[in-house]
């Protein structure tokens, strides 16, 4: 750890150790009167690309002429707008992914390749680049699902999110074919925030990135076309609790600043390693920062929002945020733990263990009793956060490598899994397509109605369950193996037990799809609205699902090359 960061720090600031105390004379990093800031644009490329595209996308949205309807004040956008917006989003994220890939290839062979830029506010090192790459790939796949719509022209988003659900206005907007193209700039801002998040070199940048990624997600959560009330409830809850979580993060930052006199991670890390015995103020501050991050990854007991928000959000958004937010937030968690806490392992270990065990157990046991597929995957996401935490907690190169592998494979499979859910719609007794069929009952017999879709979903579920020949198995093997090796075997044992129990609820969906008869649409399912069936769309979702499936199987059958890639990155970091 210190092999990279501390020499870099010493070189940059001349600050070797930091004496304890609130009023220490901080060595100024930048001499007074020299506001010149050196920015390494090539290292910032991916972030700049996505955020720039987000701004451009917003401008396009504002500039597009809309046909006004005098009576209802409906503003219908031209048909080309969604095409342009989708293209801008897809191309920019794909370009960001390529730039990140190029950076990754570049650093892969180098040692000590951390770049500090923007006056130390941004750290571009292998961890940053890997997380940015993973976020960009998952966001790209997520955008395919977001941009898709059924052959009837139905996408996942409300025509006018601010309309009162079920109102006359909303119905007219739907009939006029209004669609919500604001989705694309919002997703781009969120993606940009997620890519900046792990690159943050100080707590302020980190907080700004956190908010840049969170605020668009709060909005997006409320935009579901169907089940509008549930969606708006999800949005509000996410916003309230998210604000609560951010407050803890900010509060923690203040405490840490108070204890160390710096907001820069490297300086905090140096102060921590030099100060023994540790200041309770510093410890509590760090715990509060961790709480903010635990909230974002959905770790227990800061997980309560997850099921409601995952269920209520438009499904493509659920997939996007489940994958990308988790990757980004875990990236920051790794950054904080590996850059700041190494000297604190002993003190923070009980906290990490507690959260890890609670997350695995609670996610698994509540997941067992769910009757809604989306909600079930939400609890599954919680349990997976716990599994990844076991790798993170082991604080070793193997643990880091395993966590990175896990994050990417889980993210990709999550996009695919929610993509499938987005495609399974209710058909009522008259044969009309309705909203998504998320009730487990509605999925019964799906294997007969939509065999390819059901088969694909089954493979994602097997991957979540950690069955061999899927990437989920390799990922679990890597993190649990690292936990065993680093002496955290109790964690690994709990993880294995929870995996075994969780396999039960994944298998239940598979059984429902393939081994149960379709329910009677008029009788048993009259309330929930009919059986689910795979819907025909433009085919973008199928592309995303196909790519996810390919990653899941390839990384399950021949994981060696990817594991050696993450191991290489981990060696550079430690």
């Amino acid at each position, binding site marked *: 750890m210190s092999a990279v960061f501390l020499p870099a720090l010493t070189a940059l600031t001349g600050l070797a150790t930091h004496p304890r105390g609130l009023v220490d004379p901080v060595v100024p990093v930048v001499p007074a009167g020299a506001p010149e800031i050196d920015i390494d644009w090539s290292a910032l490329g991916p972030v700049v690309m996505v955020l720039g595209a987000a701004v451009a996308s917003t401008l396009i949205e504002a500039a597009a002429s809309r046909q006004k309807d005098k009576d209802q004040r409906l503003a219908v956008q031209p048909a080309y707008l969604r095409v342009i917006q989708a293209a801008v989003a897809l191309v920019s994220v794909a370009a960001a992914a390529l730039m990140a890939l190029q950076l990754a290839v570049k650093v892969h062979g180098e040692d000590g390749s951390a770049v500090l830029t923007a006056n130390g506010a941004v750290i571009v090192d292998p961890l940053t680049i890997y997380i940015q790459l993973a976020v960009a790939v998952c966001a790209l796949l997520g955008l395919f699902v977001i941009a898709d719509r059924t052959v009837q022209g139905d996408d996942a988003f409300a025509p006018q999110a601010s309309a009162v659900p079920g109102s006359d206005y909303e119905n007219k907007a739907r009939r006029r074919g209004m669609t919500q193209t604001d989705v694309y700039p919002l997703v781009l801002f969120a993606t940009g925030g997620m890519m900046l998040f792990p690159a943050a070199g100080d707590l302020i940048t980190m907080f700004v990135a956190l908010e840049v990624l969170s605020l668009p997600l709060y909005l997006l959560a409320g935009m579901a076309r169907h089940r509008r009330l549930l969606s708006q409830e999800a949005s509000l809850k996410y916003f309230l609790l998210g604000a609560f979580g951010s407050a803890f993060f900010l509060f923690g930052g203040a405490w840490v600043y108070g204890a160390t006199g710096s907001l820069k991670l490297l300086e905090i890390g140096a102060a921590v390693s030099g100060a023994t015995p540790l200041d309770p103020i510093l410890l509590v501050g760090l715990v509060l920062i961790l709480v903010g991050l635990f909230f974002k990854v959905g770790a227990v007991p800061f997980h*309560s929002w997850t099921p409601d928000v995952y269920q209520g959000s438009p499904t493509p958004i659920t997939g996007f945020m489940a994958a990308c937010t988790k990757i980004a937030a875990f990236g920051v968690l790794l950054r904080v733990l590996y850059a700041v806490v190494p000297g604190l392992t002993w003190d923070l270990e009980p906290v990490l263990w507690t959260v890890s065990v609670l997350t695995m157990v609670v996610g698994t*046991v509540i997941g067992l009793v769910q009757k809604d597929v989306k909600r079930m995957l939400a609890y599954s996401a919680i349990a997976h956060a716990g599994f990844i935490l076991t790798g993170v907690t082991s604080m070793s190169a193997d643990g880091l490598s395993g966590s990175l592998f896990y994050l990417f494979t889980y993210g990709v499979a999550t996009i695919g899994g929610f993509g499938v859910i987005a495609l399974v719609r209710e058909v009522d007794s008259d044969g009309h397509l309705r909203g998504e069929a998320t009730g487990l009952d509605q999925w019964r017999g799906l294997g007969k109605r939509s065999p390819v879709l059901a088969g694909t979903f089954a493979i994602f579920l097997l991957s979540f369950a950690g069955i061999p020949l899927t990437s989920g198995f390799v990922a679990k093997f890597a993190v649990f193996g690292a936990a065993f090796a680093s002496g955290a075997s109790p964690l690994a044992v709990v993880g294995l037990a929870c995996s075994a129990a969780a396999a039960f609820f994944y298998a239940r969906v598979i059984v429902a799809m393939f081994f149960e008869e379709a329910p009677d649409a008029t009788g048993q399912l009259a309330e929930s609205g009919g059986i689910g069936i795979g819907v025909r769309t433009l085919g973008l979702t199928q592309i995303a699902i196909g790519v996810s499936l390919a990653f899941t199987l390839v990384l399950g059958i021949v994981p060696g090359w990817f594991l050696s890639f993450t191991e290489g990155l981990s060696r550079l970091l430690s």
Partner: protein
Amino acid sequence: MINNVVLAAEVAASQAAQMSWLVIAIPLASAGLLLLVGRAADKWGHLLGVTASAASFVVGAWAFVDLLSRPVAERVQDVTLFKWIPGGTFDLNMGIRVDQLSLTFVMLVTFVGTLIHIYSIAYMEHDRDRRRFFAYLNLFVAAMLLLVLADSYVVLFVGWEGVGLASYLLIGFWNHRLEYAVAAKKAFVANRVGDVGMIVAMMIMFSQFHALSFAGVFEAAEHASGATLTLIGLALLLAACGKSAQFPLQSWLGDAMAGPTPVSALIHAATMVTAGVYLVVRSGPIFEHTPAARLAVVTIGAITLLYGAIVGCAKDDMKKALAASTMSQIGYMMLAAGLGPVGGIFAIMHLVTHGFFKAGMFLGAGSVMHAMKDQVDMRRFGALNKAMKVTWLTFMMGWLAILGIPPFAGFFSKDKIIEQAFVAPEGQVWQGWVFGLVAMFGAGITAFYMSRLFFMVFQGKARWTDEQHPHESPGLMTVPMIILSLGSVFLGLILTVVKFDEYLAPALVEGHHGEPVMNAYVIMGATLALVVIGAWIAWSKFGSAKAVVPTLPPAADGLVRAAREDLYQDAINDALLVKPGQALVRGATKTDDDVVDGAVRGLAWVFQGMGSLVSRIQNGYARSYAATMLAGVILLAAIVLAGRM
């Protein structure tokens, strides 16, 4: 004293030896092509198959001529093709061993194989899946050549499984008929039992010798304990029993006749079923030091040769009678292989001559079936000598060869085996008498049942059904039969004249010739007398003008009834293995259902109960969620501060 060349070949391989991987690659590529291209290749698929087999023969012949041009001490050549399984301290290479033994097999397999390919063009003409048939035949040839050319037990095992697969596919070629599919499955299962022996043998080699190549294993065997070698030997014997249809794994061979007749000729008579004999002979340096395992091999061979002969006497199905005869003849080879290096040479010699005359007879049987609308019941044949002259004459050569009448091929090879069987190991005179007499008596029975078969098919009165109009087969079928019959006549003589034993001996460990317990000429004379008696009994019952052959099997005594039922092998297998096996499976299933699944269900129930309890916290109110978070913060802060106190 042991010939060092056999143990670790370190001579530089010649160019021809280095190229001899082509004999495997050509038919393999052809098989892959025919299977991948599919129906589009229907028009020319059989031609490609024949060409591939013939090309393989040409390359093999080149390597063979090249080998003969080398000094004797440099004829065993190991060629490493590529690193197959790199494993840190233990690397496994894909390599081939080109020596006198493997090239003998290469020549036999590719020559007989090519003839049978040609024969099949006509035989399978009206089958819509002829291309697939040729693909499987090519696959078989490639796998068989890999088996005999391998330079390690693992590579050999790949070929071993490959021929098993090809055999399975070809027995069940007409799998739309249930009993054929069942026959294929039976062969597959019986072979798997043998494969366990092969795997166990390799496990012991790996754990004890840390080597799996022939060179490494044979070198280590020099210093290994007798018990280890005996275990390996017995495991290899089990493998050989499965592949070569030796007692007690013999039951599949008769049913394997369900495959098209060219398959029976190539795989289940001439080549694949002899792989067990090859394995035992090739593993000579192991058996050399374990008299116990050798005795087991000899005993198995002796039992099987009698078993096959007895069954052969009672079979009315022409192909099944030939199958019983094959089993019995391989029993002879196995017996010889167990007698040591000298016996091993005669085992291989008999294997080669048998490959010709038995393949020739099977092709003759196919020709008869072709003429008689797929009839196989010999009681409905008779007097075919006039209708099918070529088939009759070529079959007669094979018949005289298997009887061991001088100067036909079988005389030279089988008589030597019988003579060797009379050679007793030091201090074990009884062995010489027991095995010698069994082998000699077996020759008499062989003469009876083969003559019975020959006379019932070709001599006597016509007992055809009304719609049968026998005719000679086309040239594509008769020419291979004629070539093979030439082998039946002259091959034994040729091999003796060119001193095949001296050619092959350097590839095996050095043995010494012992004296038989009875004078060699007395043995030869007694054997011939028994053969003539057996043939004469058959003539009087089935061949002479006065003999009456009923078209339905007559009532018979217990032994004949037992022989008709293959000595109740299926009933015994059923009672000893299948029934207890099924009971075991049912028990395991029940345990799994009740105990294992019960525990899982119980665990799931507990977890679900916990889930219902905990999920009450998830009540949907943002305020209580926030409260949970706050409680969590306080908890974590308390934990971290408690650590400081």
